[in-house]
């Protein structure tokens, strides 16, 4: 599943609503046995350090807990793993148009078992040499 968008009304941010919404998406992934959820996290606070830090360095600082990003830090807390930067992800000056690819792997995913095709053995076709 691709995370298209998550919105919380500005007056209701900080009350855990984003976490509730994301939990429903996790439930959907588990219910339909999807491999996981992938998305692009807009690093909303990157502009504060963009003049002396690459996106890779910024993510490393966030993962280490030395910097906090309003968007990415919360997603990491919810169980997403940050991967590579995505340049020109969308027009968004605060992130300098970067997003960070994030992945949540469904822990209960199981690879579907192949379909069993009934096979009727025709013995007469193999009765060679009799």
């Amino acid at each position: 599943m691709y995370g298209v968008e998550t919105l919380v009304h500005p007056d209701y941010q900080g009350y855990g609503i984003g976490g509730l919404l994301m939990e429903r998406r996790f439930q959907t992934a588990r219910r339909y046995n999807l491999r996981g959820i992938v998305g692009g996290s807009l690093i909303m606070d990157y502009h504060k350090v963009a003049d002396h830090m690459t996106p890779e360095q910024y993510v490393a600082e966030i993962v280490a807990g030395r910097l906090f990003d309003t968007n990415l830090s919360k997603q990491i807390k919810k169980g997403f793993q940050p991967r590579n930067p995505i340049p020109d992800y969308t027009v968004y000056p605060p992130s300098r148009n970067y997003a960070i690819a994030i992945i949540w792997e469904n822990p209960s995913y199981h690879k579907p078992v192949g379909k069993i095709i009934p096979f009727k053995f025709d013995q007469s076709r193999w009765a060679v040499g009799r």
Partner: protein
Amino acid sequence: MIAHKLKPETAAVAVIPAEHKHAQGLSELSFKTYHVAAENTNDWFQPEEYISRINMFPEGQFVAIHTQTHEIVGYTSGMRLHFDATKPLLTSWDETTGYG
């Protein structure tokens, strides 16, 4: 589902599957959340785009509703995507979503 972390003075919020009737409210929520000026709303999500997402993958669309005012205060949207987790995701949002 009811939010547990809400402040005592804040009404409870219920998270439910998104339906067509929520499309107009979702469009308004996007303007408020992204701080889009009224004159620029044509560049942003219109109700039809939310309806399209609901039609494509209803199981991945949820809204958070204020249980007293029935105002939409949150939204999340997912779409089905075949993705190879061993390779990096490098495509833009527009490219991946077909412009929303």
